[in-house]
Every structure is written in C-alpha cells, then in structure tokens.
C-alpha cells in the first residue's frame, strides 16, 4: 500500500466532505484573540472566504477525519461497498491544516465530519480530540462545526458541543422508511434522540446564562441536512418534516441537498442530475415559513410538490387572489410580507417611509427589486391594479423564462 502525502489526503478527504451543504460560520458568541495566546475571532456575521464555481460559499475547512466507513448508505460516496480511494488524517494533521489556513485568512474555522471507523464512539472521540486540541493546546477562537454521530454515547456528544460552536446531525432523508432502505445502519429515531439531547443541552446552557457565566454549549446551535430527490417524498412532506424539526429541536437551519451523482454509485440509487431548481424552491419555501409568517400547509400539502416555474410566494398569491391587492400605505407588516416581490428589508423600509409620506409607485420601484412582479398585487397613492389582479393570464406574464442551464 502506498503512503499518501498530506496533499493527497487533503484532496480525498475534502472531496469526500463536499456533499454536506452547510458552511455557515455565523450566529455564535462574539470573541476575539486579543486577551489570549492563540488566534481567532468570531463577530456574529459569518464570512465567506471564497466561492467555488458551484456557487457555494467556502467559509470553513470542510473535511472528513477519514472516509473509511463501516456503514453502507446508498447515497454516500464513502459507503463501505464503494471503491472510492480511502484516506485518514491524524488529529495533528487536521489541527495543523486548520491553523495554517486560518492564519493566512483562507477560512473562518473547521467543519469536521467523519466516516465511521471501528465504532461510533471511537470515531466521535477522535473528532472531539481535534476540537479539544484546537481549543486547549492552541487557544483557537475561530469557528468549529462538528458533525455528530448519532449512535455515539451521549456524553461524547455533550463533549463535542462544549468545544464546537455548532453541532449538526443529518436527518439524511425526508422519510424514515427511506432511511431504513438506503442507510441500513442508521436509525431515524436515533438521529432524533441525539437532536433532542443536544436541544436539552442548549436550553440548559441558555438557562444558566442569566445566573452565571454559562458553560459554552454549541452557541451557534444545531443544524441538519436532508437529501432531496433520493426518495419519493413530496415537497410537502419535506417541508412538513422541516417544520417539525425546527419546532422540536430548535434547529437553526435545515439544509436541503439536491441528490448529486457520486463516483461509483450503487444500483439501489441510480445516478441522476441533481434537481437544483427543486432545491432552490425548497429553500425559498423554508424562508417563507421562518421569516414571512407562512404556515407549512399554506405552501404545500403533504401530497403536493412546489411549482418549479415560479417561486412559492407568487404561487400562493396566484391561488389566493382574493387577498389582493394590498394597500401598501395601510396594510400591516404581515400582509405586506405576503406580496410577491417584496422582501423583509423592503417591507420594513416602506413602513418607515410611509410614516412621513404617502407611498407612490416610484418609491416602491426604488425599494423593491423591480415592479413587474409587485404591481398586480399592490395599491399605492397613484396606482390600482384594477382587473389586473384577477386577469386569467397573469401567471403566464409573471413566469420567468426557463433557464436551460438549470436542470
């Protein structure tokens, strides 16, 4: 067996980690290195240090500790039955790479995940050792995201959360039955239990915050990822699951990851082009639930999929034309947020402006991203849509031209 160089390991283990969508480095506690001996700071806002040609932000060094794995998850390039080249970092190598990259300002920190070697506990322990060495030996104050292995012992998970800013446990698939079929060693229930125990830890740390300096416990919360398009779940089911995950475990984010072809696939999951537009619509719908006051059921019922041609807010508005037009000079914030083409920022600006003057179409044009989509749904001092709101071909006129590059 040939000995791999560090660069070869880095190539293999970052390639193997790229199917995790999250690269967030925001929302953790504020800190810097001015009163320490090490390096690093986090100031609330995340920083994307580069963008790859897939349009994704590179904020963290996202790597696996190893891509050897005893599990056999059909959607994963690292499953035990795959012929992918294997590598394993030592704890020291990950620590050195993280610090080297960080000091050159390439990254905000580390996102460490791993294949399962020997046992879930052994693997989790190795990952915790990396975080512990960065924090204790090197006084590293940058961002650390640890992927939690749900089958690992709860005290190891708690230890991970003590050193990490964020922990995440991937729910992997929208349906429990699909997980049983495609990832035989994983259990949806085990995943939910681990999320539940992390949530209790976070709540407890927040509780003690009022009284004393809290032990830090995943100050940037927890997140998860769901693969879209690998099973038959509808968008309504997917959003329903997200809704419950947000509610039950206080997740900061649910990431949707369009099932992407991997080298060396299995017949259990034939390769296909990733449904990128579907992924995009799911993110938009997720936003509507979290920031625009929409209930999941208003966006898509269990047996429904999202409209790929138009965004979910416009789709809702076209189905509920009776709620429009909205008078931008009178309506409350909740109603304004439901107008297609108006975002949270533009709505808040309009509410400020209208305290001092009546809004006219020209104001809306400057505060929104364009008028075409907005006009049929609003009333301003100088504009009424009249019959436009109910016009039969409204959907056709508002549907953006198909982009052939998105498949």
């Amino acid at each position: 067996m040939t000995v791999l160089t560090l660069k070869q390991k880095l190539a293999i283990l970052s390639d193997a980690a790229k199917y995790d969508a999250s690269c967030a480095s925001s929302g953790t506690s504020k800190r810097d290195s001015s009163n320490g001996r090490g390096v690093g700071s986090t100031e609330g806002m995340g920083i994307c240090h580069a963008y790859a040609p897939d349009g994704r932000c590179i904020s963290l060094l996202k790597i696996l500790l190893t891509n050897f794995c005893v599990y056999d998850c059909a959607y994963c390039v690292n499953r035990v039955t795959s012929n992918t080249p294997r590598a394993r970092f030592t704890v020291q190598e990950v620590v050195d790479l993280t610090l080297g990259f960080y000091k050159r300002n390439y990254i905000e920190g580390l996102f460490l995940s791993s294949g399962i070697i020997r046992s879930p506990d052994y693997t989790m322990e190795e990952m915790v050792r990396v975080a512990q060495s960065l924090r204790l030996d090197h006084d590293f104050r940058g961002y650390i995201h640890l992927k939690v292995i749900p089958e690992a012992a709860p005290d190891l998970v708690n230890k991970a959360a003590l050193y990490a800013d964020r922990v995440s446990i991937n729910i992997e698939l929208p349906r429990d039955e699909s997980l049983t079929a495609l990832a035989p060693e994983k259990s949806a229930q085990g995943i939910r239990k681990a999320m539940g125990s992390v949530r209790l830890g976070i709540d407890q740390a927040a509780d003690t915050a009022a009284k004393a300096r809290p032990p830090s416990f995943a100050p940037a919360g927890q997140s998860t990822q769901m693969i879209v398009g690998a099973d038959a779940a509808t968008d309504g089911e997917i959003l329903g699951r997200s809704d419950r995950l947000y509610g039950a475990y206080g997740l900061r984010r649910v990431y949707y990851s369009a099932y992407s072809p991997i080298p060396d696939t299995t017949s259990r999951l034939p390769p296909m082009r990733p449904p990128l537009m579907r992924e995009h619509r799911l993110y938009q719908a997720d936003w509507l639930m979290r920031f625009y006051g929409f209930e999941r059921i208003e966006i898509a019922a269990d047996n429904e999929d999202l409209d790929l041609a138009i965004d979910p807010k416009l789709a809702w508005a076209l189905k509920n034309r009776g709620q429009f037009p909205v008078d931008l000079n009178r309506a409350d914030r909740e109603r304004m947020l439901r107008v297609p083409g108006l975002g949270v920022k533009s709505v808040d600006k309009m509410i400020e402006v209208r305290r001092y003057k009546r809004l006219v179409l020209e104001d809306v044009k400057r505060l929104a991203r364009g008028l075409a989509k907005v006009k049929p749904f609003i009333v301003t001092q100088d504009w009424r849509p009249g019959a436009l709101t109910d016009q039969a071909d409204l959907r056709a006129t508002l549907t953006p031209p198909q982009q052939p590059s998105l498949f």
Partner: protein
Amino acid sequence: MRVARLASQTDFAGWRAAARSLRGAGVSPEAAVWTVDGEGDLFDEVVPLPATTEGGFTVPKGFMELAEPVILHRSPERFALLYRLLWRLQSEPNLLHIASDPDVAAARDMAGAVSKAAHKMKAFVRFRKIEDAPEETYVAWFEPAHRVTEATAPFFARRYANMAWSILTPDACAHWDRRKLHFTPGADKADAPDGDALEDYWRTYYASTFNPARLKVAAMQKEMPKRYWRNLPEAGLIPELIEAAEGRTSAMVAQTPSEPSRRIVRQAQRLSRDGSFEEGAPGTLDAVAAGVDVCRRCELWRDATQGVAGEGLATARLMFVGEQPGDLEDLAGRPFVGPAGQMLDRALAEAGVPRAETYVTNAVKHFRHEQRGKRRIHQTPTTRHVEACRWWLDAERRIVRPRVIVALGGTAAQAVFGKATPIAANRGKALQLTDQAQGVVTYHPSYLLRVPDAAAKATAHAAFVDDLRFAWKLAS
C-alpha cells in the same frame, strides 16, 4: 463658487469642518465645489471658506452614521452628495427616513457598497508567511473596492492579535506589531511577498470541495467579483474547473452502478427482523423500553423523537400512570421530567411518598402534538392511541405487579380501567382491577398547573396530595 479643499480622500474631519462653515455661510450645494489636495488645481480662484461660527446647528444622529462610511466610497460625487443632504435637512428634518428619496437612496447605496467592500476585505485578504522572520510574521497585498483599509484593520488586529502582520494596499497600509496598529501610505504589489508554501494546499482544497454536478458560475461571480481574482491564489483554477465540470458530471451519470455485497444485504435483513415486536409480549422492563422505542402500533412515532417507557422501581408497590410524554419528556426520553413532572415531585414530597419507590409511566408512550409555528402544542391522545398502546402498559403492569395503580387524569383512567372513568365522581376510592391490583383515580398534575383561580388551585392541589397519600397508604 466656493471651493472646499480636503487633506485626503478619507478626510472626514476636514469635510465636516468645511460643510459646517459652508452651511453656516448659507452657501447652497450648487455653489460649493469639493476637491482633495493633490488632485490638481482646477480652481484657481480659491475663495477661502468663511470662519466657522460657534454654536452651529445639529443634525439627526443618523446623518453622521451615514456620512462616515460614505466618505470612504471612491465616487468623486460623495462630498457634494453629503453636503446636499446636509443642506436639505434644514427644511426636511425627516429626510433620512425616506429611503426612496433619490439622494438618500444614493447615499445609502454608497454606504452599503463601502460596508460590502469592508466585508470582502475581511474575506479576500490572503496572508503570506515571511519564512525567515524572527517572529511569526505575515504580509498580504490587497486591492479594496473602496478606501476601507484603515476602517477594517481593527478587525484583523482582533482576529490575529498574537501574530505580526501587514496589509499593503494601493491606498494605505496597515501594520500590527502585536500591540498596536499603525498606518503608512499606499504601496506597490512588488512590496509584498509573492508566494506561500501552503497556497498549494489551499488550491488543492478549493478544487476538491467543488462539486462539478452543481455548476453555478453566475452565483459564484456575484459573490466573488472578478476584480478580486488577481489577488486570490485559488482563482487561477476557476477556468479549468468550469471547463471540466460537464464532462465529469456526464461520466458520473452514465456509469454502471456496482452491486451491493451479499454481506450488506444479510445485515439489512437481520435488522428488519430484529426490529419486530410481534413475537410475544416482553418479559422485562428493558424489553419494554426497547420495544416502545420501535413501536409502530399507531402512527404517533412518526412525529415524535422517541418512545418513552416508564421508569422506577421494578418491584414497586405503587404505579403512577400519566397521559403521555410532553415536549421535554419527548426530548429527554424519560417520563415526568417537565413542568408536570416537577409538580408531581412536589406533591409526592408533600404527601410523603418517595418517588424512587414507585414506578411512573404513561398510558401513551409517544408524544402526540401539533406543530404550530416553532412550538409543539400538546394534543390529547385519542381512544385509538390508548388502545394501541395498552399492549405496553399491560406489559409493565404484568412485570411490576403493583398493589395500587394511580391513574393521573382521564386518559390514564381510560387506559387503566378500560373504560371512561370520571375523576370527580371516583377520586378518593379504591377501585378493584381485574389483575388483583387496586385502582385510584385523581387529577393529572398538569391540570393543577392550569387551574386559573388561585383559591380553586389550592383546593385542587390539596385534594391531589390527599389522593397520593391515600394511594400510598393503600399500597403499604
């Protein structure tokens, strides 16, 4: 025409002083011209600015917050734009709140562009290590979109407090010696080191983390504009990555899948077999706990975190049966640990009943709830759920063999007695059960939490404690 001459491109104090004196002298925006030292003397007839009058005037707080970043913008129009805003504020005091006003919008756009340039500087500065320096030293060459070097340097001082570094730019250079920041005039790219051994690793990482099946070049370029590429070591790879992407994707989509090994298939079959619970009633509490967790007798498992079995003394004389796990019980996997559990604990203490000598469980083992926004709202389980879950309660009753079973609330009474058993009419009595145990009904502790009237609450609480004492005595 009045000419205001500023000491430098980022001379905010100079702009402020000049603007004060111009406005004090009633010089309208159209009659004022702004220039910076060294920009060439376009205006020969310089009329000195009038002396600033004491007292002056006030501006809304938001104006200074807006003006400071706007000065850092590269647009030559910025000084005049700010003066025009200052002028208009005299007669339009609310002007800054009108985001759709063209001047306000232009100034806010400039402030936004400056803030973005600062953010991109934090992102795209690439330090290179000076190899033979006595202490750890790094130098970067950077070309910011706007004049944000001085304003952004403190960020780097906080982040890299314990290493020496310099950021060289065409406008200004920032230096940190591990104690304080100082600035020198703009420099040249040749003044910075031209490489770093780790850059090759960084390029390796950049190329490997890219997923060719998700090519989205426009999205990349929007966030990482081409103007920054020449100073980013990784950007040189972009053309070849884009070019190879389609071929790599097509190859992956066209490949023949490999077959799963027989070992893996066997493993999956074993797992599905062991998950079944229909082989016979469980004979130990551990088997109950394991079985409850994988139970599929009704659909409640689907939205719950886990099944919550009972816990306590396996040979307890007294068993409590509640309704179902709540939000916290569902997360923790243990019965009665939430607010109702704390209420029960207090009442048990008052009644002199040691919880450790009892067994506590629920009629229904999964949390039935409704998702409302970010909260999970409790929903009472239906008779169907109670019936489906009786399998587990009966097993617990057979294993623990308590002398007395206390049903807490209506759902528990339904489960324990097999029929609706009103609480008010039956509490305080020992009711005979078919399995030789005696049954007692009382309120559910969460009912006590909900009684709105203080007097009624105290009465109900006292009754509840009485019932617990009664049951404990009955079991002793």
